[in-house]
């Protein structure tokens, strides 16, 4: 009886598996990069990049195909794009998704919702906000050897090891859904022959409300996470010095309970001085003391400005509310939000210059 049941199961499974649609990799249009812009009449315009791999003899001749369609939502764009493609489109390999700043300022919560629902999407996917039109950025050919999607993916991935904070779909969705926390994404700008990361865009819910230039990104990353690399130039008298970070750590402390909360943010930076431009002095320990003081002042002013801006825009990308929520049991989100603009945040930076080389 057991054997009979097993046989019936096996046969039915084999037969049913015949109904399954399957196509080999090369018969799919594998979307590697997608960009969304604001279209006409409140619709969105999606642009998908599909790499065309050459045959085995001409491996280097990888070209790209761009398909563009309008739709009310992401899925409709997908449907419209399918109509233009001879192969079934597959979005599982999507590695970079870009949204134009214009679209993001109008709110992209619907799109974010799709991102969190579709199980085929990789949590390692990179997201970005384009300063300009996403379609322009995607459809330009860049003189570098890599394909466009690879270049953008590596651009975001590598910079996350330096000045830019880590952002992928997982991190984004975490801060998007977490209570007392807001999301941020890197801001990407198309230059004439290249693309560059030009700053960060901060969200309030699903809407971009503010951006910072790349000169402030180091300060933000320093407040946001521990990291080991990255560089920051600091004005000193007439010239500038270049601090090369070799280890920065950050600590939050919530004081006074929830009644009158006060945050202490302590940052410890160990850095080397790489370069001094326009500084006409001999490098010695006493100068370094001076430089340390200048850097502390620079970082503290910058950080306070940033936090002031967050308070004005009522956003919390550092997740201070989330920090308080996880530590205090009677945390009340609405009350927290009401009092957020009065929150006292005290940033204390400690810079230690470990090496300054030999300057004469």
């Amino acid at each position: 009886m057991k054997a009979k049941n097993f046989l019936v199961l096996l046969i039915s499974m084999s037969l049913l598996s015949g109904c399954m649609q399957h196509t080999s990799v090369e018969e799919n249009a594998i979307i590697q990069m997608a960009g969304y812009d604001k279209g006409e009449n409140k619709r969105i315009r999606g642009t998908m990049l599909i790499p065309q791999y050459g045959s085995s003899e001409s491996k280097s001749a990888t070209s790209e195909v761009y398909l563009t369609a309008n739709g009310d939502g992401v899925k409709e764009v997908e449907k419209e794009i399918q109509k233009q493609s001879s192969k079934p489109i597959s979005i599982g390999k999507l590695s970079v998704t870009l949204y134009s700043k214009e679209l993001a300022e109008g709110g992209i919560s619907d799109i974010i919702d799709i991102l969190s629902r579709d199980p085929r999407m990789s949590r390692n996917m990179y997201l970005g906000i384009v300063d300009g039109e996403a379609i322009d950025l995607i459809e330009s050919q860049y003189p570098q050897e890599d394909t466009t999607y690879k270049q953008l993916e590596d651009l975001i991935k590598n910079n996350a090891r330096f000045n830019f904070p880590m952002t992928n779909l997982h991190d984004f969705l975490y801060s998007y859904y977490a209570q007392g926390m807001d999301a941020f994404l890197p801001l990407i700008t198309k230059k004439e022959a290249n693309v560059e990361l030009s700053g960060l865009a901060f969200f309030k819910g699903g809407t971009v409300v503010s951006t910072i230039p790349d000169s402030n990104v180091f300060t933000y990353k320093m407040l946001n996470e521990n990291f080991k690399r990255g560089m920051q130039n600091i004005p000193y008298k007439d010239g500038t010095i270049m601090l090369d970070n070799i280890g920065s750590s950050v600590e939050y402390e919530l004081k006074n309970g929830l009644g009158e909360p006060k945050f202490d943010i302590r940052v410890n930076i160990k850095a080397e001085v790489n370069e001094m431009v326009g500084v006409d002095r001999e490098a010695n320990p006493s100068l370094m003391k001076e430089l340390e003081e200048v850097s502390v002042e620079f970082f503290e002013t910058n950080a306070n400005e940033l936090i002031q801006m967050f308070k004005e825009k009522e956003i919390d990308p550092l997740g201070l509310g989330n920090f308080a929520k996880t530590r205090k049991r009677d945390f009340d989100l609405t009350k927290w939000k009401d009092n957020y603009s009065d929150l006292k945040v005290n940033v204390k930076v400690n810079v230690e210059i470990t090496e300054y080389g030999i300057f004469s």
Partner: protein
Amino acid sequence: MWKWKRKEKSSTEQTQQKSNQKKSLTEFIQSLQKSEDFIRYSLGGEECTVYYIKTMSDSKILNRSVLPILNDETFQSLEGIKQHIPVENMTVTEDITLIQEKVMFGYIMVQLHHSAQEVLLIPAVSLESRSVSIPEVEFSVVGPKEAFVENINTNINLIRKRMPLPQLTIKELKIGKVTKSRVAVIFLDGVVDPENVETVTQRLKDIEYDQIIDSSFITQIIDDNSNSPFPQFLDTERPDRVVSNLIEGKVAIMVDGAPHALTCPTTVVELFGASDDYFLPWHLATVFRLIRLFAVIFSVLSTPLYVAVLTYHHEMIPGELMATIVSSRSDIPFSPILEVIVLELTIELLREAGARLPTKIGQTIGIVGGIVIGTAAVDAGLTSNVLLIIVALSALASFTTPIYQIGNTIRLIRFPFIIGAQMWGLIGVSMCMVFLSAI
């Protein structure tokens, strides 16, 4: 674990067989006389007759020790002859079964005319066998280089000389209705679990089969689960390995005529252990054994994963590999499964052809087949480069197993995995894995 599968045959059947065999001595002699190599002649005026099989008996013993004494004197009884002939272990008997067995094995039979039923059996066995040589299947660079031969006495000698202990016990059985093969059950008394010895001897006794040509016949008859593709006995040609297994408390089975010993019970991991492992320092041996285990997993899973990933789960291909795989696949007219099956069958074909051919030609076939067919298939656009590498590597990996039998198992179980991968993707592969661990 040890299930008593084969029940003992009813005793009435056995006694019946015995009575059938019980022919008279004359009948036995008559049936033997049809063969040209059966010699019979009388000495001293029909007083005394000598019978033997020329091709089985040692003529030196006959000429030097038996014939001179029989010619010189006249004896009244077999016991008298027995006392005069300087050969050990002679028997006087009437038992026709024993007589038949011994004569067929090369004993010289002496019959005094007046006591027709009783005969004297003089051992003069001459057996042809090759000498001990180096192990070919389980070769190891370091360590002893002796392998078992077909002669069971030599084989037991190889074991005993490594373990001069009174506790080393050897039980002998005769199995096979026609071949009457000598089967020895060897164990180290006091170390071995007596229940295992009991089980093995019981199952061996219950075997009813015409021919036991090799030890592999025994594995197939007495194993726990005959439907499992995995070997349940460790089959080895190295005496040192048998000895170390005996010391671990295992039971060894040896068959006369088989250059391989079986040891049991055995575990799967043991089947992947080479004797080299014990001759090397522990860190090296551990790494090598892990490499071997990895090779086995790679060999079983690589092509099924190729099929599953390319057919169902493109998302799993890393971005860097995507271009390589897609561009090598783009000219191929077949689906991944067809491509894989064609190539795997080609490899199996080469292997089978190589195994059946003489060594010299076999090597040539391997090289010619591997290089020519492989490159030609890729050039013709029948298979992709990537797959060719995967299949070749997995074939190579399946050769790393030190025990030949488990290598065959790995060769076989890959195919259900490939079919599972095609039908249900990665779920199919994991289902096959579950089934595999169930059998």
